[in-house]
């Protein structure tokens, strides 16, 4: 087809779309809503996945392992969506006995227990009845990406055993300043000295990790001391450098023995737990994307309806065009250009709208949706394809009529 034909079709289509702009507005709205919801859902899913990756430091490393209560982590390919959802929340905890002796276990190094204690925290400005205290050690930094804004992390050489590192939000709330180094924080009746303040941490939505911005980090032993061994151990991070399989095996049997031969612990790689949460997120994203795709489909049907009406209105015009020599293909092309323009405009507005929603979500929640250029290209392609598919049905219908039949209708 020659370019002059294309240009004249394009001009005519713009003219027609402008003349029926009110009807077209509602059609475009359908595409806009459908497309922006698809983009937003994929973007939110991507954003959360990236945040998970970010918080689990170097999760691709195969040397890093984690001990978890068994019910949390069951990488069972047969498990369906519902049981996967149940697995998001922890339903058990490790025994403090599990931690004991791990440090000296052969082949295991850099053991970092991750325990949480909810107890009273008193600062100079305010206090919390049930604040979050994370009992851990200096190795936690190897597994989670935490960085210290001022001072140093716990258990550094020269630090007293009762040193504490606090999240930035909590520092501000407890002491009224961002860097209250050297101040005393009272945790469950025992004084701790603030040795460091964390940088703000991006939190993972739906994650079993607590909000580090509002937590106090203290030494694991100190945490067990002040709570008479009541700090729940959720995870134990560790590094196994050599003979991974045999070390993991012997460690597993060691843990089973401690727990009276009940195998209620599970050792996985660090990438395993991020894999699991990613898989859940993938499932969620897919499910919601499916719902959003349905709304996109409805938008497409809307375009088809408008094209049907538009063609019914212009049957006479089609007759005239055919009478003076337009081929069926040229007629179909004319209407395809029109519906492609409609859906393309809808796509553009949808993309702009999803950027606006993105901004709103970033400003008001901790989720950071990621709209990649691939996603944008994909979305625009989808919108044009929808326009072409749903536009072609009425266009073909219109073009197939005998010219005289089209001419007779007025």
């Amino acid at each position: 087809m020659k370019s002059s034909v294309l240009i004249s079709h394009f001009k005519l289509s713009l003219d027609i779309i402008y003349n029926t702009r009110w009807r077209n507005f509602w059609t475009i709205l359908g595409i806009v809503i459908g497309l922006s919801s698809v983009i937003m859902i994929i973007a939110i899913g991507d954003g959360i996945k990236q945040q998970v990756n970010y918080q689990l430091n170097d999760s691709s490393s195969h040397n890093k392992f984690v001990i978890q209560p068994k019910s949390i982590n069951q990488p069972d390919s047969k498990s369906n969506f519902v049981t996967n959802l149940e697995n998001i929340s922890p339903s058990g905890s490790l025994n403090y006995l599990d931690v004991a002796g791990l440090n000296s276990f052969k082949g295991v190094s850099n053991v970092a227990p991750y325990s949480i204690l909810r107890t009273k925290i008193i600062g100079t400005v305010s206090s919390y009845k049930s604040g979050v205290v994370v009992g851990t050690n200096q190795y936690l930094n190897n597994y989670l990406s935490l960085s210290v804004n001022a001072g140093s992390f716990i258990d550094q050489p020269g630090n007293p055993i009762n040193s504490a590192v606090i999240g930035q939000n909590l520092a501000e709330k407890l002491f009224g300043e961002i860097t209250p180094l050297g101040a005393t924080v009272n945790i469950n009746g025992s004084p701790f000295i603030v040795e460091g303040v964390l940088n703000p941490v991006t939190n993972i939505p739906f994650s079993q990790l607590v909000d580090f911005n509002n937590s106090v980090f203290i030494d694991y032993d100190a945490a067990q001391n002040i709570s008479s061994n009541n700090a729940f151990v959720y995870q134990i991070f560790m590094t196994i450098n050599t003979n991974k399989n045999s070390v993991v095996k012997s460690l597993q049997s060691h843990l089973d023995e401690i727990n009276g031969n009940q195998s209620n612990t599970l050792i996985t790689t660090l990438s395993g737990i991020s894999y699991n949460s990613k898989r859940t997120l993938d499932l969620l994203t897919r499910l919601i994307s499916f719902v959003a795709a349905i709304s996109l489909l409805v938008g497409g049907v809307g375009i088809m309806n408008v094209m049907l009406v538009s063609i019914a209105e212009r049957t006479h015009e089609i007759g005239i065009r055919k009478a003076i020599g337009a081929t069926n293909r040229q007629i179909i092309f004319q209407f395809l250009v029109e519906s492609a323009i409609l859906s393309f405009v809808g796509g553009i507005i949808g993309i702009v709208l999803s950027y606006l929603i993105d901004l709103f979500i970033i400003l008001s929640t901790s989720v950071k949706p990621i709209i990649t250029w691939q996603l944008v290209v994909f979305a625009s392609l989808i919108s044009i394809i929808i326009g072409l598919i749903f536009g072609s049905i009425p266009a073909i219908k219109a073009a197939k009529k005998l010219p005289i039949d089209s001419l007779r209708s007025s």
Partner: protein
Amino acid sequence: MSLIKLEGISKIFGFGDASSLALDSISLNIDKGEFVAVMGPSGSGKSTLMNIIGLLDKPSQGSYMLDNKYVARLKPNQAAKIRRDTIGFVFQSYNLLNRLNIINNVSLPLVYKGVSSSRRLKLATEILDRVGISEKEYFYPNQLSGGQLQSAAIARALINNPKLIIADEPTGNLDSVSSMLIMELLTEIHRAGNTIIFVTHNPELTRYASRVVYMKDGSIVQDEVTPYGQIAKTAKLLLRPSLMKSDEDNLAGVSVLMKTIDRIDKTSKTKKQKKSSRRKK
């Protein structure tokens, strides 16, 4: 050599009990350069015949040879190309697109041929000049009179330089003065070498034709060759004594009469101008 050769063309509308025979095995030869008038009462099948000759419709039976090609059973796209390149169709109701201005309407067949925009405008300007409405190029159809619209429609039919022009009651919606102008225009085109077939109810217009075909109930009942400038013999029988008027007729609608006089004045002027310009040439 015959341009159009119809043999046993029939057209049936509807199905079963409700079917009706619009054309009853018509055979007709039209040579190149003929100026044929088709006459007949309403429902005699004139328009159906025109639509089949113009490839807007397909015959139910029979063979149709246009310019040495069998065209009765063509695929839609091939038919479209012949409509575009060989046939110019003029309708009673003009059938111009109201969305487009006159020059774009006239150049529309060239769009489908793939002619460039500047060349389209050039050709359309030339042809509009030929039909005498070049000053209305950028007007929209709703701003023009019936005669001007029909002139534009003829210009559109001419733009691809077709061998055959089919006019289905081209003067049906026009007053007598405009009718005459349009017929003059068609005569001029005929003189330039085109074959023209037109349908009319008005026996007066057989003056312009070289041959008159009469139809009734889907058949051709008479076919006579008539000298140019004379009303055909059979058509004369149909001619009503329209010149006889009562006094009341003369009094009715004086304002309309005034307008008509006005228009006649103008058109006679333009005719004189045309004639004088022709002489100059």
